[in-house]
């Protein structure tokens, strides 16, 4: 049915375009000068018909399902949903839906079959209504647009105004996305903090989200202190930085000052390849090569380390960050005015001295900005740690131990189970909020530093 609505709309758009263009051409053939070209009259009609129709169809698609579901659930015989919590109600709805699709398991209760019939009927009539509404609206707008064709009508202005509005809408998508992120994180976090006090979340030192979902389940009480989780993120981030920063800095220094153009042209793209590898590949590399290597090394040195050691995840993350840091450093070094290094060289300093005592100090703000961006990346990085780090939160800074991170917890809490009424799933949103705020602050700081430094030399 939806495709029929799309088809009707598409046809109306084409007809509207052709009709208006032809009408304009006819007026022109009569020897009268029009304000706008024929094509603009057509375009005006097409936009006037197409946009509202598209909005109606999309809105209908988004809201039809939930509204019909709600109306069906409201029309259930009284009493059948008494005493059920939100999860069980949702389950009932899913059952009714699958009956409506014809997937019947066992013999469902009679009222469920009736509800399924109702659901089917309401969905069918809603789809029908959509087609009728789109068809009526298209015809009405078609007639309206056609009636406006005249020599004086400024079709170009009309069409351009619509296109201009469209472009403004496109650029506000970024704002809506940010608002969406903030709102969804805030709302779910507020729900979470109603169940778990915010002070416990912020200052608690135990993270044990394995709580009972059903009343009869054997599980712990659950503790939601984010300190050990955040500490785990910091530990892995530190390991990654300790490895990646020197490697990134020295390669950038070499490429910037010592390498021949040919070496540069080969090495830079190779480093970019490293940056383009999806992070899941790094994660698999960590469990395939790095973790076993670390374990056997440790075993031959006579001690045992955890299979999910933070070191493995940290090293892999470092590999991911190397190109990031080196390209930022390279840019910062290149941005230092040539006169500074020329002056230094003219005074008799070697290239190395020029680099270490003149260029590098001058580029420090840019480099620090780059490293800060790398920090925010390391904290927000998900797949490497999901695959290579542990899931048990431990309050430790031992890199050989297993730690968990904010992102790992978000993913493990939300995989498979998305009931939005228990602290276990909502905790993921609180962690997401934490992650969002932390990375946002670091990013803003980094961008500030980089910008300030750029202004220094521009």
């Amino acid at each position, binding site marked *: 049915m939806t495709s029929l609505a799309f088809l009707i709309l598409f046809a109306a758009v084409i007809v509207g375009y052709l009709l208006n263009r032809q009408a304009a051409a006819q007026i022109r053939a009569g020897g009268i000068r029009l304000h706008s070209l024929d094509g603009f009259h057509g375009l005006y009609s097409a936009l006037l018909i197409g946009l509202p129709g598209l909005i109606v169809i999309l809105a209908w698609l*988004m809201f039809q*399902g*939930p509204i019909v579901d709600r109306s069906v659930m409201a029309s259930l015989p009284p009493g059948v949903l008494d005493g059920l919590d939100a999860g069980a109600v949702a389950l009932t709805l899913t059952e009714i839906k699958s009956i409506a699709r014809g997937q019947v398991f066992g013999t469902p209760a009679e009222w469920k079959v009736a509800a399924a019939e109702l659901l089917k009927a309401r969905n069918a009539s809603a789809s029908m209504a959509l087609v009728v509404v789109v068809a009526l609206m298209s015809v009405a707008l078609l007639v309206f647009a056609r009636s406006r064709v005249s020599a004086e009508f400024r079709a170009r202005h009309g069409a*351009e105004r619509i296109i*201009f509005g469209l*472009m403004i809408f*496109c*650029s506000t*998508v*970024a*704002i809506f*996305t*940010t608002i969406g*992120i903030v709102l969804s994180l805030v709302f*779910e976090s507020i729900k979470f903090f109603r169940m778990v006090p915010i002070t416990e979340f912020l200052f608690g030192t135990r993270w044990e989200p394995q709580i009972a979902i059903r009343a009869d389940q054997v599980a712990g009480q659950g503790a939601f202190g984010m300190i050990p989780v955040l500490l785990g993120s910091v530990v892995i981030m530190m390991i990654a930085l300790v490895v990646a920063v*020197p*490697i*990134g800095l*020295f*390669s950038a*220094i*070499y*490429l910037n000052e*010592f390498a021949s153009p040919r070496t540069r042209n080969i*090495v830079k793209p*190779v480093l970019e390849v*490293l940056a*383009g*590898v*999806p*992070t*899941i*590949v*790094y994660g698999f*590399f960590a*469990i*395939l090569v790095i973790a076993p290597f670390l374990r056997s090394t440790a075993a031959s040195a006579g001690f045992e380390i955890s299979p999910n050691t933070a070191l493995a995840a940290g090293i892999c993350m470092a*590999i991911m960050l*190397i*190109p990031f840091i*080196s390209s930022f450093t390279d840019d910062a070094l290149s941005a230092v005015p040539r006169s500074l290094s020329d002056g230094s060289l003219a005074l*008799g300093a*070697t290239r*190395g001295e020029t680099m270490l005592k003149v260029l590098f100090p001058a580029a420090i703000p840019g480099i620090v900005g780059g490293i800060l*961006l790398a920090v*925010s990346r390391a904290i*927000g990085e*998900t797949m490497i740690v*999901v*695959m290579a780090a542990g899931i048990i939160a431990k309050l430790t800074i031992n890199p050989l131990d297993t730690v968990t991170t904010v992102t790992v917890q*978000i*993913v493990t809490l*939300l*995989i498979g189970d*998305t009931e939005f009424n228990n602290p276990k799933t909502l905790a993921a*949103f609180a962690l997401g909020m934490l992650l969002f705020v932390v*990375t*946002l602050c670091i*990013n803003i700081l980094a*961008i500030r530093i980089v910008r300030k430094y750029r202004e220094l030399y521009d």
Partner: protein
Amino acid sequence: MTDISPDTGTGNRFDWTAPAYRERVRKRRRGETWLRIAGLVSISLAIGFLLLMLVSLATTGYKAFTQTHVTLAVKLDPEQIRSDNIAGSNWRQIMQATLAEMFPDLDTAGLREVRGILSDGAQFMVRDRVVADPSLIGTTLNITVPVSDPFDQLNKGGIDRNTPEANRRLNDAQIAAFDKLVEQGLISTPFNWALFRNADSRFPELAGLKGAFIGSIYLLLVCFAIALPVGIGAAIYLEEFAPKNRFSDLIEININNLAAVPSVVFGLLALAVFLNYFGLMRGSPLVGGLTLALMSLPTIIIATRASLKAVPPSIREAALGIGASRQQVVFHHVLPLAMPGIMTGTIIAMAQAIGETAPLLLIGMNAFITAAPSTPFESATTLPTQIFIWADSPERGFVSRTSAAILVLLAILVMLNGAAIWLRRRFERRW
């Protein structure tokens, strides 16, 4: 350097050949050499990591591109096949009878050990052949079917025959049976087409990437269809029309911040808004594509703005001068000239999107699905989430298949980036 005494012209010139000076120069040179060495070591470490990664993936992954098969002679006894319902016949029994014929000297207990040689999918392959061509009933069907994962490992050297029997996944009898098949020349290792023709499966020998592949394509189509027009629209507005005011600044700040938001946060957004609020289908490429479209929007906007900026103002002025409206200038002249740059940026954004995993896990694209999706509106997996599922699977055969899937993903990335570079080289104009 500070203690170099100025040349006063009294004959007290600095002695450039003094040993102390030479020592100092040598020291300075040494510092320089160390810096060079540190740089070279760093670069070789970085490149070494890349090579190590590729080599380890290739050495574990290449095995998954072949699959051990065994050729069977299946007697299709009309009495065992139900003529009214061919597919519903007891195919398991027919396969067991075939095996019993191949190993006449084994008793029932021995046969039970050997049964595991055939993949669980073998009986269905025979079934499908017969369903497609019922005239085969009554004849002997020669068919090549995959062997199960442990025997595949044995054939590829993944199982060491020297380990004690108790620690081995296959016992001596099973290995002996397999060796007998090898002797009879019934074992072959052709290219593993199943890797590309099948969707996911619990059994490594049957698991393939088709479902993930189609899921990824749908997801990219949705992502492309949304991100490209919206991105171009936003970039044109910001670059060509936006007045310098607070609103424009706000948009720019937002775009820059979005580019740095961790991808998993987009997953949370999608979960709360698309799945929970709008009730869209969980795990569908539609939701995944919407999410990744929001993520790749900043990349596309930034690339588009850069290529719009690269079009010289003279083009705009010339068009304006002969009476074009501002929108005509953009859509008739500037945008076509900027298109190669925009497409390059878009391809790079798509290459990022195809490898993105974390948000897709949160919206349920890591479900176990054994059929390729036929529309973007049903649950599916994508290449990276399939890699994640396989990497989590305990069967040995999935290790090599994970590497193989990663190699396929990397090959696609290389192709996409190659296309972007080609576009840039072919169409880029310097003004």
